């Protein structure tokens, strides 16, 4: 068992080191093949650990310079290992093709080398068995992903994104670090604590720290702002991994912490629930308005994080009030959604990456008509859309179903005050779901359907087969996971949580075939492909179509309070007294609320302090001696005072 595991680690390491050390043309195909092997092996390796009977297995035990490191697998980590295995398989299939079409030379080696290492670091985070090991791998994950985000460093936006990412990830480290230190103080050991409880304020403080640390990493609002900058800036396979796997890894940590470290408490639950609701609703609101295809996907990751947080929060609340059945349902929903989100978000990012590369733009308004040009890519994207829009029986539906069930179930169980909270959560949750559908109708419809709106989109061509084979794997798993969800839950030992969607799927399939057959046999089969309604214009032009902004305008109007706009204008004058107006520009733009009202003010404040402090260093030796003089006086005063 542990040998096999070490072999898998070796495979990942090898596939990371090979392109970093050997500079041969297309060496990354070799590395990809190894990574495929690693992914498949990892999936197979983790499957038996899922069984209800399997206990925690220690795979490796050692010391990292006096600190204990344990690597072990249990059922929760096995679930995420499988996700990681599948994602690495599909990314490995996808990456070589993507790299071939990327510009720059040396960075290709770096990207292809860092991807497996990044995956490995996440694997180790998931399998870490001591808080110290967790911290080590968590940090490695952060730094590796930072370098990957930085790939296209020539672009100003990328550098901004990576700096933002680094700052936030450092902040996350601060919290996680602190949380782990506090746990170490409370328990006196580096082992994962088990169900801490008690009135020690340190316990709650440690929870808060860990939660905020994880929240930053998984893009919980208001700590999210780095995410829509960083995820799109990275090359698409990396975006897929960051959105698909890194967020899942953070969520794994959340599950581990919330369910394992602390005795569930009401306060914990409501805290998570509140952040979850905020994240889900605002995340999808921002996603809806986003014009950058990858940015839209990134925001949608935030919204899914929110959904998962809601599930986790519900778990804590229900557990604290003593409804284990409901709690289990909520947690199952959250975990399942985390997995399925990993899958379909990976799928969406990979296919979106192909599209962006082919069209040479990430702006949805400049796309259109891609489906005809890239049918495979488009088809798999569509499956991703169906999943994320939680269309039954695709996988995205299951998580929402379970969480909704537990919410509605909780409605009839809890005390009146909590019921009201549940209603609020319920309506926000469903609002999120509906807006997600709208968002992805926009994302799919305006990107793939209708007429191309730019030259780039017109010239887009289908990618080579491995680049849609990777997404195909994800699409298959994503669909299968939904269809067989009932069976999967029974296999895991939780039967009867949800209706049998296999039947639903078969019914849908059968009915469609029946309807088709009926229409085919009884109705007229005459078909013509022509111009349909063209308003009397001779040919519909792409300029007549709805754009992304137009599409979402009604929602923006409905939720005007949330989308704050800001008017900007610049004027130029002919004379210095600013009397003779020369020219100017003006407009309205959507306010980046969190960035402009939260992040930038803080950054400016810190910068002000920094400039204040660095003005101490003014180059004047007299000033320097003065510091010494004053300090000595103060010290003498302290001496006299303390005696």
């Amino acid at each position, binding site marked *: 068992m542990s040998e096999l595991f070490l072999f898998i680690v070796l495979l990942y390491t090898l596939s990371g080191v090979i392109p970093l050390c050997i500079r041969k043309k297309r060496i990354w195909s070799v590395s990809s093949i190894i990574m495929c092997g690693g992914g498949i092996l990892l999936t197979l390796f983790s499957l038996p650990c899922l069984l209800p009977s399997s206990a925690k297995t220690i795979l490796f035990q050692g010391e990292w310079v006096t600190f204990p490191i344990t690597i072990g697998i249990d059922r929760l980590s096995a679930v995420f290992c499988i996700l990681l295995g599948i994602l690495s398989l599909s990314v490995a299939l996808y990456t070589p093709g993507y790299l071939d079409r990327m510009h720059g030379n040396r960075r290709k080696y770096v990207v292809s080398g860092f991807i497996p290492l990044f995956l490995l670091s996440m694997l180790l985070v998931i399998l870490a068995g001591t808080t110290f090991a967790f911290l080590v*791998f968590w940090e*490695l994950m952060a730094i590796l992903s930072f370098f990957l985000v930085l790939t296209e460093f020539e672009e100003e936006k990328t550098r901004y994104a990576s*700096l933002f990412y680094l700052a936030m990830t450092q*902040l996350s480290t601060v919290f996680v670090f602190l949380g782990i230190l506090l746990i170490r*103080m409370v328990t006196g050991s580096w082992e994962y604590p088990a169900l801490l409880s008690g009135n020690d304020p340190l316990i709650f403080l440690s929870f808060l720290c860990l939660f905020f640390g994880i929240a930053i990493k998984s893009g919980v609002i208001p700590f999210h702002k780095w995410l829509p900058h960083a995820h799109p800036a990275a090359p698409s396979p990396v975006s897929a991994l960051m959105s698909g796997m890194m967020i899942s890894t953070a969520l794994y940590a959340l599950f581990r912490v919330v369910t394992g470290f602390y005795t569930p408490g009401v306060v914990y639950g409501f805290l998570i629930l509140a952040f979850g609701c905020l994240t889900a609703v605002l995340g999808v609101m921002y996603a809806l308005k986003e014009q950058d295809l990858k940015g839209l996907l990134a925001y949608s990751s935030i919204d899914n994080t929110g959904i998962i947080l809601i599930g986790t929060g519900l778990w804590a609340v229900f557990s604290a009030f003593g409804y284990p059945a409901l709690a289990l349902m909520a947690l199952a929903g959250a975990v399942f959604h985390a997995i399925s989100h990993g899958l379909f978000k990976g799928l969406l990012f990979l296919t979106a990456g192909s599209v962006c590369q082919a069209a040479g733009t990430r702006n949805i308004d400049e796309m259109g008509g891609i489906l005809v040009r890239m049918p495979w890519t488009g088809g798999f994207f569509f499956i991703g859309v169906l999943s994320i829009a939680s269309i039954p029986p695709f996988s995205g539906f299951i998580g929402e179903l379970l969480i909704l069930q537990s919410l509605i179930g909780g409605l009839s169980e809890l005390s009146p005050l909590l019921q009201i909270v549940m209603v609020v959560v319920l309506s926000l949750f469903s609002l999120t779901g509906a807006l997600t559908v709208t968002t992805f109708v926009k994302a799919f419809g305006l990107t793939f359907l209708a007429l191309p709106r730019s030259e780039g989109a017109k010239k887009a061509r289908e990618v080579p087969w491995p680049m849609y084979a990777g997404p195909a794997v994800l699409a298959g798993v994503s669909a299968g996971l939904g269809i067989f969800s009932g069976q999967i839950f029974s296999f895991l030992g939780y039967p009867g949580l949800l209706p049998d969607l296999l039947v639903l799927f078969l019914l849908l399939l059968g009915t469609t075939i029946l309807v088709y057959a009926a229409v085919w046999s009884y109705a007229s089969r005459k078909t013509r492909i022509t111009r349909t309604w063209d308003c009397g214009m001779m040919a519909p032009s792409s300029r007549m179509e709805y754009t992304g902004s137009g599409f979402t305008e009604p929602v923006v109007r409905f939720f005007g309070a949330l989308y704050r706009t800001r008017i900007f204008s610049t004027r130029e004058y002919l004379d210095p007294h600013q009397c003779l107006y020369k020219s100017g520009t003006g407009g309205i733009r959507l306010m980046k609320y969190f960035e402009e009202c939260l992040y930038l003010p803080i950054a400016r404040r*810190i910068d002000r302090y920094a*400039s204040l402090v660095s003005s101490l260093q003014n180059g004047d030796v007299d000033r320097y*001696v003065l510091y010494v003089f004053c300090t000595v006086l103060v010290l003498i005063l302290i001496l006299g005072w303390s005696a």
Partner: protein
Amino acid sequence: MIAILYPVIALGILLLQLILRTHRSLSLLGVIHPVLSFIITLYLIVSPAVWNESPFFLIDHMSLFVMLVTSIIFSAASIYAVGYIDGLVRSGDLEKRSLRIFYFGFSLLLAATTMAIFTPNIALFWICAELTTVLSALLIAVLALRATIDASLKYIFICSTSMLFSFIGIIFLFEAVRNETGVGSLEWKEILHEAAGLDSGMVFIAFVFFFIGFAAKSGIVPFHTWLPEAHAKAPSAVSAVLSGAILNVGMYGILRMTGIMQGTEVFGQVSVLLIVFALITMSVACLSMLRQKKLKSLIAFSSIENMGFIMLGIGIGSPVALFWALFHMLGHSCIKAGLFFSAGILHRQYKIPTRSGEDEIGDLFLLQPFAAVTLMAGCAALIGMPMFPLFLSKVGILLASAEVSVWIPAFVLLLFACAGVALVRYYLSVMAVRFPAGEGPAPYKAPFSMNLPIILLLLLSIVIGTVMIPEEEAFLTAAVADLGFGVQI
């Protein structure tokens, strides 16, 4: 009497440097001296039996540890200097005549540092520390530019004036011991032995005054002002030594002195004093880092930050904290020296020492891929990424500090985050600058002797950061015990 070899070798080398005048031989001698010191140190470390043979040397785990760090840094710097100084001479930045001054000063500096570490007497220690100031000031000014002379003068003024206070402290200490035992003494070991009986008021005065000078020596705020300028303007080989070895001399003094304090009644006050200064140091350094536009100033401020962090470990005063403080010292020296070396390559590439104003770095990855990558690795190490030693010492010291107050690690971690952002922000701002086609400088080919020490130091720091070298733990624990702190870690 193995230890006697240190001064003997130093003398021999200095004599040879007087006789031999060719550039080659001078640089060769420059390498031989620290490497020999390194070998002797290693020998001493593995054979504890010979430690107590000479009354003129204080040889214990602690001094050997600091000496080890020092000789590693000096060896690396001397190897680096072979190529670096050669480049300076070729480009005309360094006059041929100054060459001998440089190598002579370099060897003398090593000798002074060695003596400072091994001397059993506090006053002698003070004198050697003063000597290191003078000699490093000489090395800083060796390029004879307005900026370097300015920096070196500031160094002398701030450090020497502060060091005078230290001497007052030493006198107080002496008097305190005399009051207790009737016979004054300045031997580290004896004072440590007598520490418990000393008058608390006297001892506290002694400590505070002593602290002023050595804080200035190790760049503790507000005595740090000389450091960013001196380290930034010195030739990179010298900056590395200053940051990696000379700062440690100051810390060594504070360590020993705190060890003495540990046995007295005033340790609580000393601890608070150290922690407060450490936190002030770290905050000033980290915030200043955010505004630095020059690479070497940035790295220099990061040295201040790290010194503050080591002092935090000392201030906490538990054996665990001291253990990790020593560990941090080792790791920081290796990483910082490596970083200054990388920065030196960039300075050669972009001719920075001869210019004023902002660094003009561009086409970084095209012109200097090696320096760029090692710089990146060094920054990652400074930020405290796992695989590098600073991460571990961060965990160790912060864990110990959490026992004092939970807010210390929170605050310090935020400062570390700040420093990390500052480093990366700088790196990001230079990495993408492109010179217009044809206007960039010709690539500077760094000789192998400049690349080798960087690789060695980075490898060394990764080794330290990932595995415990056999006996390392026991050795460090013993070093902590030598200082007068408890035995167990």
